[in-house]
Each structure stands twice: as C-alpha cells, then as structure tokens.
C-alpha cells in the first residue's frame, strides 16, 4: 500500500492503494465517483473512459502511480455543475441517446475529448473515434447523431 495524491475533477485527493490498483476502482470504491463504469477491465469496451490531461483514457488500464501530477476528469466533473451541462451532454439529452444508459458516461467522455481535438469532424471521423466504445443496447445511431450535434454547439 502506498499513498498517492491525485488531482480529480480539479480537487487534490489522497488515496491509499496498492500500486497495481486501476484508477477505475480507486474512483469507484475509494472516491465514490461511480459514474465511471466497469465493463471489461481490459481496455476493450470504453465504459471506464476518463480524461487525463484532457485526453480520453481507459481508467481500467491506468495505475495510480502513473497519475500523480496529472489532471483527471471524470463524468462527474465534465460539466461545471448540473445546470451548466457540457455541450456533449446537452446534445445527448436532445437526441435522447441512452437506452439502459450504462455505457453512456464512457461514450460522453470519449466524445468530449475527441471533439476538443477535432471540433468539426466528418461522420466518418465520428464513427472511427467512437468505435472503441461498446454500447450493448446498440444506441449507435443516436451516439453518432449526438456527437455531430455537439460539434455544432
């Protein structure tokens, strides 16, 4: 066990964890940030996507020891507050994307990082960027639509 100081959603937090503990479980079990979801644990589904220094990353593959001095943002910290949603969240709402909803935090985190890099993507680029995120309910048409809509916001 070691203690790490992490910066999550703009706040410094101290966590005690074994050095092989994935960020995913630190967020969920230690920091009570359960918006980041567990889907596969091997980097294949994207349910656990967070931003590290603004880039989309799979939190199930990140270790606390690698994250000291980096800015971590989770779905809970994407918007300033619930009344000022991020444009991607607004688009998600307008398009009524979710079915079961479980994958959606990961989808939104992937989409928001992608749009920062590529603010005016083509549909082909959107499809490619979102390919790593599985939606078992297959809300893919709406995910694509919502990313396109968000890019226009």
């Amino acid at each position, binding site marked *: 066990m070691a203690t790490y100081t992490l910066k999550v959603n703009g706040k410094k937090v101290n966590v005690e964890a074994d050095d092989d503990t994935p960020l995913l479980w630190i967020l969920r079990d230690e920091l009570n940030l359960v918006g980041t979801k567990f889907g596969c644990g091997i980097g294949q589904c994207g349910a656990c996507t967070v931003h590290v220094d603004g880039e989309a990353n799979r939190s199930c593959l990140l270790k606390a020891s690698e994250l000291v001095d980096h800015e971590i943002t989770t779905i*809970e910290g994407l918007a300033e507050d619930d009344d000022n949603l991020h444009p991607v969240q607004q688009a998600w709402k307008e398009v009524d994307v979710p079915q079961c*909803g479980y994958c959606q935090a990961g989808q939104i985190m992937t989409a928001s990082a992608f749009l920062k890099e590529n603010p005016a993507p083509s549909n082909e680029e959107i499809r490619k960027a979102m390919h790593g995120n599985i939606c078992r309910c297959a809300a893919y048409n709406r995910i694509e639509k919502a990313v396109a809509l968000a890019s226009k916001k």
Partner: protein
Amino acid sequence: MKDKIVFSRRNFLRTSALASGGILIGVNFLNACAEAAQPPVDVANLDFKDFNAFIKIAENGYVTIFSPNPEIGQGVKTSMPMIIAEELDVPWDHVTVEQAPLNTEKYSRQVAGGSQSIRAGWDSLRQTGATSKQLLINAAAERWGVSAQTCTASEGIITNEEGETLGYGEVVNDAAKMEVPENAVLKDPKDYKIIGKNAVNVDIDAIITGKPLYGLDFKEEGMKYATVMRAPAFGEKLKSYDDSEAKTVNGVEEILQFGDKIAVIATNTWAAMKAKRKIKVQWEPSGNLEGSALHSQKLDAILDRKDLKVEREDGDVNKAFADADQVIERTYESPFLPHNCMEPMNFYANVTADKVYLVGPIQTPAGTASQVAKLLERDEKDIDLQMTRMGGGFGRRLYGDFVLEAAEISNLAKKPVKVVYSREDDMTAGTYRPSIKYRIKAALKDDKVTGYNLKEAAINSNMYGLIPNFFPAGAIANYKVETGNYKSDISTGAWRAPYTNFLAFAEQSFFDEIAGELQIDPVQLRLDLLDNVDEGADERIEYSASRMKDTIRLAAEKGNWGSAEPGIHKGFSAYYSHNSHVAEVVSIGMQNGFPKVKNVTVAVDCGIVVNPTGARNQVEGGVIDGIGHAMYGYFPFEDGRPKAENFDSYRLIRMQETPVVDVHFVENTLSPTGLGEPGLPPAGGALANAIKAATGQRLYQQPFINSFEKQKLQDIKV
C-alpha cells in the same frame, strides 16, 4: 400469449390525504384493492403490499408517480407514466417519475421481460389516469356547487360553465376525502396530447452526469465486495483449493467455500478480483464436459428422428410431400450466445437475524425473493428486495443465480456484501441462448407452397407458447412443427426474443429460397402466403395477416424494394413476435469482399406508439443487435468451457459496423404492444438474404463472419 389481465373497474384505486397536503392515490392495476387497503399519509412509507403504484398530486398541482416497475433500458419508466399523465390530463413537465422501492413482503408481480409491460398496462394505466381526473373534477364541482357533468379538465385545470377555473392542486385536499368515482371516461386517441409525442428518458440527467443509478453503484456503510470463483467448465466440481497466496492480498478479509464455489470477500473490488486469480484450484468432472462439435452431432441426430414432439399439425404433410413437384430442405445452425449486459451481474445482500436485505438489478424480483427465502430457510416476510436501474437485461437478469450467491455469502460471512462479476465471470457463468438447429422442408406444387415441415433441435429446451403458431402457420394448408432437445450441463435460458431470434433467420432465409425456386419476388411470396390466412379462424394464431401485409408494404415502400441502386444489394424479411409485426429491408455493399451493412429500413406495427423517441430507440437497438449477433456472435464450447470470455475474444458490433436504421410505424389506434424484442428477429434473415443477393452465397450458419473467413475473401463476387 392471450391477455390474462382482467381489469376491475371497481375498487382498484384508493386515496389518502397526505399529512403534508395533497392527495396520494394508491392503485392496484391487477386486482380490486383489499378491503382494508389504505395508502399511507406520507410518501416515505409507501409500501407495495396492496398497491402496485402510487400517484401523488401536490398542492401546487405537480404530480409524482411512484412505480416499482424495473427499468432495463426498454423505456417503460418513461412510457408507462406517460399513459397515466395523458388520461389524468396534466402537462408532462409537471410529472416526476420515481422508481419506488420494492417491498417484497407482498406485492404484485412486476417483471420486465417479453416486451409485455406496455401491453399489459395499457387499459389499467389509462383507467387510473381517467379515474383520478374525474375525482378531481368531482371535488371542484362540489366546491362550486354545480354538477360534475358541467365541468371539464385539461392540462391540470378544471373549468366550469361560467368559465371559472381551479387547478388540480387547489382541490386535492378535498378530493382526498371523496368517494372514488366509477364513471370515468377514457379519451379518444385523437385527443392525445402526451401519448404519441416524444418524451425524453426520465432518467436522462442522472445518466449523462454519472449519478449512481445501477446495482454496481450501490453502496452501504460497512459493505464488503465479493468475487466468486466458479468451475471453469460446465460439468465440473470443486476438488480442492489452496488460498494461502490469495489471502496475502491487501484488503482481503475472508475466503470461504460454498457448494462448489469459492468466495473472496475484500474491502474493495480490486482486491477481491486480484485475490481470486491467486487461488489455486483443482476441479474434477461431475458430468459431461461437452463441446460444440458434440452438440452439432447430437442436434443432427435429433433432426433425423421420426418421433419428435409435434407442436402443431395441420392437414396432411406427408401427402403434400408425396404429391409435390419439388421438395426443398435446408438446415440452419446457431451457436450459444452470452447476453453480455454492459453492466456485469452484481447484487448486494445483507443477511441479518431480522431481515434479508437485497439490492440490485433483477428482472424478476418476486420470484427471486422467494428463491432466496427457500435457500436461507427464511420466511418470505423477512426478504426485502429493492431494485436498481439495470445496465441491460436481454433475458440474463430473469435468472437470480447471482442474487442467491450474494445472499448465501452474506449469510455465511455475516457481513453485508456485494457480489461483483468480472466480464469473464459474466461471460463464462451465463444462462446462454441455446445452440439450435432448424431443418425446414417445403413441398412445392403448381407454383404454390403446399406443405411445410419445421423441425427444431435445441439444447435443453424448445420453443414455447404460441411460437409454433406464428407465420407461416395458417398460411400453408399442410403444416407441421416438431421439436426435440438434448440435455446438457451448459446452462441456458431466455435471450432477447427467445427462439424467434434464430427461428426468424431460418424461416426468412428459407422463404427467400422458396421465392427463388418459384421465381417470384420474395416480398410478393410473403404477401401471397398471407392472402391464404383466414383471419380469426384459428384462435391459436395471434398474428394478423392484414396487419402483417400493411407492415410488409410499408417496409418495401420506404426501403425502395425493387429499385436497383449501384453497388447496393438488398434483403427482405418480415416477422411477427411479442405481439408486434415487423418488416425490414437490409441494404449492404461489399467492401474488400466483405459485407458492409449500410441501411436497415424497418416498418413496425405495434399499435399506438406511446413514446415515439423511446420506441424508435428500442427498434434501432433491436435491429442493430440482430445484425451484430448474426454477423459476429460466436461462442463455441470445448470440454465444457466457453472459448470466449471477454470482449477481446468475443466480438460485439461496434460503431463502424453499424447501419443507419430508419424506423417507420404503421399508424393506427390499436392497443400498444411491446418493442424491446420484435425488431431483432427479422434482422438476421434480411441480412442473409442481402448477402445472397450480393455474393450468390446462401448462409446457413450464424455467425456469418465465419463463412467469409473460411471461404477466402477473393471468391466473393463484388
């Protein structure tokens, strides 16, 4: 399935004056309320012993609907309250919906499955809204001293002949003291203001901001996390194990055996997962360690048998085949499939001397609660089971095996624990869609289909209920459906659109071949066959030939069936299941010798569409799911073990493989039917038919991807 719900107009609704002001209406959709049943006077104490939903109307006129109906992603948490709000006649944005906690002490069954929620609730939900509205009108009329007949209500406001108005909120306290009326009148569908308009998922804000909603998110003071080691193969049991290394993992509190399983209890999920991998276990056979090759042989042997169970027989099939000009026979084969809900199985249990508290995602709370009672030898009254939102169901969460595990571990460890499955656990300890083979034989004579024989050979169990009476039953005079099964240790169960998810592929592919032999258009063949159906003549037949024909025509029209587009190949399919009629046109192009699904045009007759955005979402998802599993779902077994265990070895459809799904509803004012499932079955057949059009190759096995790998991509004509 016949409608078994007998709605009692009398006495299905009771009211209370809330201590905080306002009215609480307790509703029992399924029965008359018990003599003594009375809603509580505060909403903190709702219990679902006598009622299966509550409606609170506050003094400001705002409405809260408390419904215990489980939400698995099919949208009933939005669409069912819409129906109440429509008849109650309040603005939709004055309505809040709360997932009410379930108290299993005694409540009416609430099960999400079989796309039945909307269908079963339609009459009773409307009646509830209308009766509540009449009650409020009566209260206003009394205040004015006029006859209730002279008053009307709309958008939460009651108006009398003088033009005076009272808001619902202003009369709720009076209404709470009045008799419940029995003369409420339902609206004419043409006057609907909420039904038929898009209502965004009521949980949307919580979902997109990452609020705790799901079982995996649930936490309680003192809760531990448990992982479970199960035999890696079906047909194996525990021989011995060494947990000395596992116990050294930080955070591990206890490792215990229960039955043939081992539980690791730890202070966090990661420790429980990590320690589980460090247990050294020896397993030994307890049954047959079977593989897919063996199953294939066994199923073939069943198809060859002459003594299968006859599920339906019309006319004289043998004579039809003897007299035929031509007989076509084909065999279709599907693998087992795991459900792969995005949220892996999990459940919380806290077993104590006075109660058994269970929380998590389950589609069958009542049945599961009584199984837990039996397992722990407890009174059913001791079991308190509460449901969370579910990260998908697809049939997996009908089975409470993981709830029993949680209850047993908590009972042994005397601690509150949450059992958490890894993806590997979820995929390898499943209740799979059984592997199935169909052999279909048709007799053709004078350019007509004169005989039809379908045989089903399945692992563990066969098609059920009215499936043998689905199309083409009733359309072909000499018709026979037979079934047989092979019992395996591999656990199987319902999987989104059970049986029809593959049966439709087989039959809809087969009709295409018949159309080819008869040299008629595949759409026309289906319309011609439907013309043979004498509607209403056979009670067992619940599909409607005329509705099916309308649905087929709509899909053909919207999907530009029959018009050629360069590089595009189309396939057609139509199927009735779960009380809805669906037809689909799949358009594909070939890319490097591989089919690329471009568009799916879907026509659906599900009666009145309560919430179009939600309904479309269900159909889009069902169609893509059907395409994805037909194309990629491959889950073979060897020596009792599944050969895939996570998303690196099991392929699910992803964004770039996804077609654009274009959904059209047949417009009518018939009672609504469900949509969680019916979009799926036709998709695989339509895709197979499009692949045949593109490549000349007829596919008989799912998943299709295997056919392309096997036969080298360059063989395919582009």
